[in-house]
Each structure stands twice: as C-alpha cells, then as structure tokens.
C-alpha cells in the first residue's frame, strides 16, 4: 500500500476545518475516519498488482560505453485497469533509465515498456525487481508490489583498440606478401614459385626450378600459419590498480530525482560508488590538464582511471583479432590463484566474439597471484610450442618471488612475451622539479622506473620479450611485438 500527495493535502486542509469547527475534537476524529474510508475504498478499487504478468525481451549483450534497450511487456489479466507508476530496478552501474515510467494497462491487455541501459563497467548485470504502484480511482492511495523478472545483460569489454586494427592488418598483409613489398624471412614457410621480376631478391631464385623451365623462377615465402597464441591474463591484485584516464565516462544517474538509492560498495575499502564519482569527473579532467605545475598529489587523487585489467584486455583483444586474421589460433587463460577463465579451440571466425564473452565477467581479485600455479596451468594446457603472452604488471616485489623463479620452466618450452601497463602518473611524477616535494616524488618515481628497467633486463636475459607501454599505447605496442615476432619467424 502507498499513499499519494492528495491524502496529505486532505489531512492538511482538514486542519483549517478543525480550527473553525464547533466541536474540534469530533472534527479531528471525523476527518481521520473519512481519510481512512477514502484510502480503504481507493485501495480496494485499485487494479491488482500481484496478478500482473511480465516478460522481457531485447538485447542480452552490450559493449561497454554503448547503450542497450531492454523491453518489458506488462500483461494485466485482472478485471481492473492498472494505472500508475512502474520502476524497473537495475544495479546502479547498469545505468538504467528512466527511473520511473508511467504505466496504464487496461484489463486483459498488455503494454510494452522500454528501459535503456548505459552500463558504466564490465560484467553481468542482473535485473533486480519490477515494482508497480497501482493508483486507485480517487488517486489517494495505491497498491504496490514487486515482481522478479529475471534478465541478464552482459557488458562486454569495449575493444577501444580496434581503431588500430586496420593499420596492423596492413602490416600483416605486407608480411604475407599480398602487399607489393616482398619480405624474405628466415623462418618463413615456402609458399609458391613464380617468374622472376626485376627487383626480386636474387637469393630467392630457385635454381633447380629455373633449370627445369626456360625462365628464371623465384620462390615466394609467406609467414607460417596455424601457430598458437596463448594469452594469459593475470587477474591478481596488481590488475586492480587504476591507471591513466578512464575512456568510459562514469555512470550518470538518469532521471530527475536526486534521492537515488545509494549503492553499497561491499567489496571496496573506499566509498567509491559509481553515482558519487559522476559529478566530479569533468572538473578533475579540466583541472589536471590546465594546471600541470600544481601539486600532483591532489590533482590526480579524485580521478580513479581504469583498472590495469581493462587496459590489458583491450590489448589482448587487438592481439587476438590480429592473430586470428593471421591464421593463428588464439587461446585465453585468466588466472590469479586459480583459473578464472579458460577459452580454447574457438574457430577463427568467432574467436573474438568468444573471447569478449569470456572476458566480460572477469574482475580483479584482491589476492596475490600464484605464478607457479599459473605456469602449471599453462604447461598442462599448451602441449605444443606456442607464444605465451603474459599480461601482468612489472611489479618488482611480486615478480621476484612469483614469476621469475618459475619462468625458466615456461620459457624453455614456449616463447614468452610479458606485456605490462606502465603508469603515466609515474612518468609525470618523475618529471617533477621545482619544489622539494616534487623532487622527492620524482626520486620515488625514478626508483620504481629503475626497478622496472632492471626487471625488464632480467626478463630479457631469460629469453622473454617484454612490452612495457603506457595504457593507450599498450595495444599497438603488443600488436607490433607480435608482428615483429611473426616476421622474424620466431613463432
């Protein structure tokens, strides 16, 4: 049951009547009884909420940063018209709107309502409840009830780095010889024989074939195909750190009401909610860019950035798209202490779709990654030699005890490429000069960079490739590293 403003208005206006009534005590009692009677009548004659039937339809997948419409079909099997308000409740980060919708379903009919979701982060978003407030004929009181209408929308990684894909694909075509430039690599596969044209490398002339035919014939080469690329995503605690500037705007609470239900940040040590961050974002963006010389600790403190995990996923998606076009097979493993996700054997055409689907619900766990277990998982899954792309952080403390001792097991059987997201904030701090605070911060930043450089050198000594790039550059840098490995025939 719920009341409306009219009930309050009747009670308030009644006070004037009581003031001038000859028997005010009886007037109060009479008004109370009148209000009670009106409310009772209204509730009795309001359309029933419990018998309503709901069905959902629409999209189940949405890429982060885009919006999606979910439709709700309300069917009224009762004998009275259901007229009032409907709220389709979703988690706050689903960005559902509008908050309230008007509902008017005559008896025996059905209506279609549309809720637009604009999710603010990756993962599965479950519809919570549909609440209907059905007003009575007088508009004084209403019946109210909730229904559970299950629906899940999976928010996929945005794959922002797909803008780099055409450039990398043209590089790939150069390798494959479809491009006019011919590349003769050492480890490349023999493709076919064709007639010599001026400009061909004389070293590629096939003398035996030339002898058989009256013409000079050269061998052409193409990069090897059907290699395996295993992308390993570290979802441990270092993946939760936020880096750079989030390319996805935080959720803005739709609807005019400011009294939004506060989301409880159960897993968060800070009260960082999607709703509370929203109004600060534009302010932070302008102040950080307009005042490069001010104290850096405060300018960046409000901008949460984007988790390393999401930047890594972006790079992994570009790599997977490129590798599947290049004819390689892409497997995917997400691991912290146990295997979080494992994808293998997807066909080349749908490997990217399967990959985003697998990646969508992965969140960083606040535990130290277990590298030994990760290496064991990789070794048990990858029987043949493959390129293991390890997306993690070059955290000296974690690497010294975690990955480095077990890396030889991995690098002896596979080619290992370690890709890490560098923090642009550290580079910014390292350039700080002028005041003692900034210089001390610069020293701390140089300390970390020195450690990362030493770690990179150690990894290279183990025979690993290392890509350490700023968040925006990681995806193209990783793609370039893959292409250069492919050109060199090291896959």
């Amino acid at each position, binding site marked *: 049951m719920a009341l409306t403003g009219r009930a309050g208005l009747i009670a308030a206006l009644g006070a004037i009547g009581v003031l001038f009534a000859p028997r005010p005590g009886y007037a*109060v009692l009479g008004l109370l009884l009148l209000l009670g009677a009106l409310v009772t009548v209204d509730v009795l004659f309001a359309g029933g909420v419990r018998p309503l039937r709901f069905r959902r339809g629409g999209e189940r997948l949405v890429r982060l940063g885009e919006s999606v419409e979910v439709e709700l079909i309300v069917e009224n099997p009762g004998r009275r018209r259901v007229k009032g308000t409907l709220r389709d409740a979703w988690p706050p980060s689903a960005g559902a709107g509008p908050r309230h919708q008007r509902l008017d379903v005559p008896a025996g009919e059905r209506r279609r309502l549309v809720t637009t979701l604009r999710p603010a982060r990756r993962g599965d978003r479950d519809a919570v409840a*549909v609440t209907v407030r059905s007003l009575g004929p007088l508009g004084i009181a209403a019946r109210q009830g909730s229904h559970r209408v299950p629906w899940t929308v999976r928010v996929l990684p945005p794959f922002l780095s797909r803008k780099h894909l055409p450039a990398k694909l043209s590089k790939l075509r150069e390798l494959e010889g479809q491009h006019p430039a011919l590349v003769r690599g050492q480890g490349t596969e023999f493709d076919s024989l064709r007639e010599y044209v001026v400009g061909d490398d004389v070293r590629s002339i096939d003398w035996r074939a030339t002898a058989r035919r009256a013409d000079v014939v050269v061998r052409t080469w193409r990069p090897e195909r059907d290699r395996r690329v295993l992308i390993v995503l570290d979802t441990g605690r270092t993946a939760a750190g936020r880096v750079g500037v989030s390319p996805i705007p935080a959720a803005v609470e739709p609807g005019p009401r400011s009294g939004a239900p506060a989301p409880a940040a159960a897993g968060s040590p800070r009260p960082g909610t999607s709703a509370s961050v929203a109004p600060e974002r534009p302010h932070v963006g302008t102040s950080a860019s307009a005042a490069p010389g001010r104290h850096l600790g405060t300018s960046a403190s409000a901008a949460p950035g984007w988790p390393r995990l999401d930047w890594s996923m972006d790079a992994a998606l570009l790599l997977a798209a490129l590798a599947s076009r290049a004819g390689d097979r892409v497997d995917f493993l997400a691991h912290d202490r146990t295997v979080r996700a494992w994808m293998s054997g997807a066909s080349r055409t749908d490997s990217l779709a399967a990959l985003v689907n697998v990646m969508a619900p992965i969140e960083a766990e606040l535990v130290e990654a277990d590298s030994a277990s990760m290496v064991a998982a990789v070794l048990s899954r990858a029987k043949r030699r493959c390129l293991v792309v390890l997306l993690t952080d070059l955290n000296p403390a974690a690497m010294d005890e975690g990955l480095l001792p077990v890396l030889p097991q991995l690098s002896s059987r596979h080619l290992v490429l370690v890709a890490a997201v560098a923090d642009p904030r550290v580079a910014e701090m390292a350039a700080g000069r002028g005041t003692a605070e900034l210089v001390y911060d610069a020293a701390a930043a140089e300390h970390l960079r020195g450690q990362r450089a030493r770690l990179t050198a150690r990894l290279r000594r183990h025979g690993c490739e290392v890509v350490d790039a700023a968040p925006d550059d990681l995806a193209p840098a990783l793609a370039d590293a893959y292409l250069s490995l492919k050109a060199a025939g090291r896959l």
Partner: protein
Amino acid sequence: MTLTAPPPAATSAPAPSMSASPTARSMWRGSRGVILLGLIVVLVAALTALLTGTSTEGRRLDPADATLTGGKALAQILQRRGVRVERVSTVEDVVRLDGPGSLLLVSDTSFLDPVDFTRLSRTQAHRLIVGAVPGLEVLAPGVAPAGAAAPRSREPRCDLPAAVRAGSAYLGGTAFTGPRGSIGCYPGSEGPSLVVSPGARTVTVVGDGAFMTNQRLAEDGNAALAINLAGVRPVLIWLVPPDLPQVTPGSGRASAGDLIPAGIPWAVLQLGIAVLVVAFWRGRRLGPVVVERLPVVVRAAETVEGRGRLYRARRARDRASATLRAACVSRLTPRLGLSGDATPNEIIAATALRTGQDAVWVRSVMYGPIPADDAGLIALAGHLDTLERQVREP
C-alpha cells in the same frame, strides 16, 4: 569449444515473472511472533498495574483521599461516631460553618494569604493545626516551633486526657514551645510535639500529621489520639487546598495557555496527522534499494606517492639524490655510446667532452656528495636535467 565462464543463456526460454511482494499470509507468519510478544508485554503490564494499584501521588490528609497519605479513614470513623465532617477549601466556607461547636483542622496553609490568616484567626471554632504551617503564629498565638524531632512512636508523658487515654502514638516532626498555661505532650529532646493551649477556644498543635493518615491510623494509639483530638466537637471543618487553582478569564491570572481558543490544539493535532500522512507518502520507496558489489578503486600510483611522502617525511636526501643520479646515468650511458658497465670516470669524461662542461663540475653533479639541504637537492635535480638536455642536444 570450452568455456569456463558461461555466457548468458541466450537460447533458453525467458523465465516467468514471479511476485516478490509478501502476501497477507506470509506477513502474518512473519510477524505473528512479534505480535504475540507485544500482547504478552501488554498483558503483563496491565496485570501488574491492577495488582499494585494506583501509584498516583495522593493528597496528604485529605478526607476524600484513599491513598496511604490521605485521611479518608479518619473522616469515615468520625462520621460513624456522629461528627459532621465538612471538607472545605475556602475561608468563606470556614466562616459560614464557624461556631463554638465546631473544630477547624488545618494541615496545609500554602494556598492562603495573610488576609485569610487574619480572617481565620477571628473564627470561634476550636483549632487543630498539623505541622509548623505558615501563619502558625497567627492561628496559634504563643506557639512557636522549637526544632525538629524525628517522627516515631512516643509516649504521652503529660496530663492531657486525650493523650493519656490514647497512649503511645506516632508523633514527632516539629517540637514546639507553648505559651504559659499550655500543656505539652509526646516530648522529645527539643520539646513537646503536641501543644494544647486551653482557653475560650482550644488550640491544639501537633508536629506531624502522619498518625492521622490512612497508613498509620491502625498503629499504636494513633486512631484514639486522632479521634480524641479531631472528634471532640459536633462539626469538623476540614480545610484542604482547593482541587484546581480556579482561574476565571478577565481575572488577570490567566496564563497564555488558557487564552488559546479550544480549536487550535486540535488543529495542531490535525496538522500532525497530516505530517504523518505526508511522511508515509514521501517515505514509501518504489521498490527495493539496490545494492551492488563494486570493484575496488585503487590508483596504481599510490605506492609511488607513498614512497615519495616517506622520503619527504624523513628528509631522505641520500636516497633521493642517489636514485636521481642513477636514473640520469642510466639514461646518459646509451646516448654517450658507452656500454652498461662503463666506469664513473669514463662516463664523466664522455659527458664533459660532449657538453663542454667542466669535468670537476660534472663529477660533483653526477657522483658528488649528498646535498646538505632540500634546496641543494632541488638544485641537483636541475643540474642533472641540464646535463641530460646538453647531452641530448649538444
């Protein structure tokens, strides 16, 4: 294709909707325990109230009051013995009933003013005054309080027939000194707590009225003493404070509350009801509060910032300068065409050659002593930047 994380069930039929609101039956089931508990509490409270009786404050020595401190028992005994007990609250009533055959009993004079005392003192009725009341010197000339005496059971120790016949009684309260010719009974260390001044009208003063209350009347000789003192005349004028201070509009004694029209408190009550209704209207949420587990928000640069703050807090110029120098050297060596294991002397020589700076100065910047203060550290950072820039753009 094997997937550990299952995609949303896109192919399965949409699950039917179900009502999540509680039904009347489930609400009854859920709340019947609470209702039962509330009923038990109310029942116990009602039983306790019935068994212990009213605990309201009684009116002390009022002939119409049946509480422990009242005087209804004494009034009824006297009436049964043929005494006409008149309960009055105004001096006018006292004057109307006044006469030589009456006895005036006064236990509280706080509601009387000096004019009333004078009028009372002119009456012919005999007097029984309880306690050292205000106006005692007017009502009982010559009797003055002499000190406090603990109320307890006392022996008469005097010749007053009423006291002697009654025997020991619960007296005390105040001790008095009487005028010449008066009789003092039930004495304590300070003096008698019952004084009788005989004359045309007998004036009796007792230190405490507890022996006449409903509670104590049955003890000792209390009842006998009370009857002997109060029941000696055919009419007993029992003066008690008025029930309610009587205020008439226009008398100048009305408070602000008396002047408010009767409708206003009721209108305020009605407004209160309206506030409740509005509160229920605004307070009813449309559906549940939705909670969500959000991922942790930790900026990756926090550890570096923390290290910077630690350096600053401890003024760690040694570590800061060493780190800055090492970073500069590691960037300069490849640019100078030196290998990673070049000695400091080689690096200094190459840098000095490339930049044209003095080798001693270059050495002091790159391998010199730890800066003595923060200004020195800032200067060192600037010098390192200068060197790097000059190596980059000779």
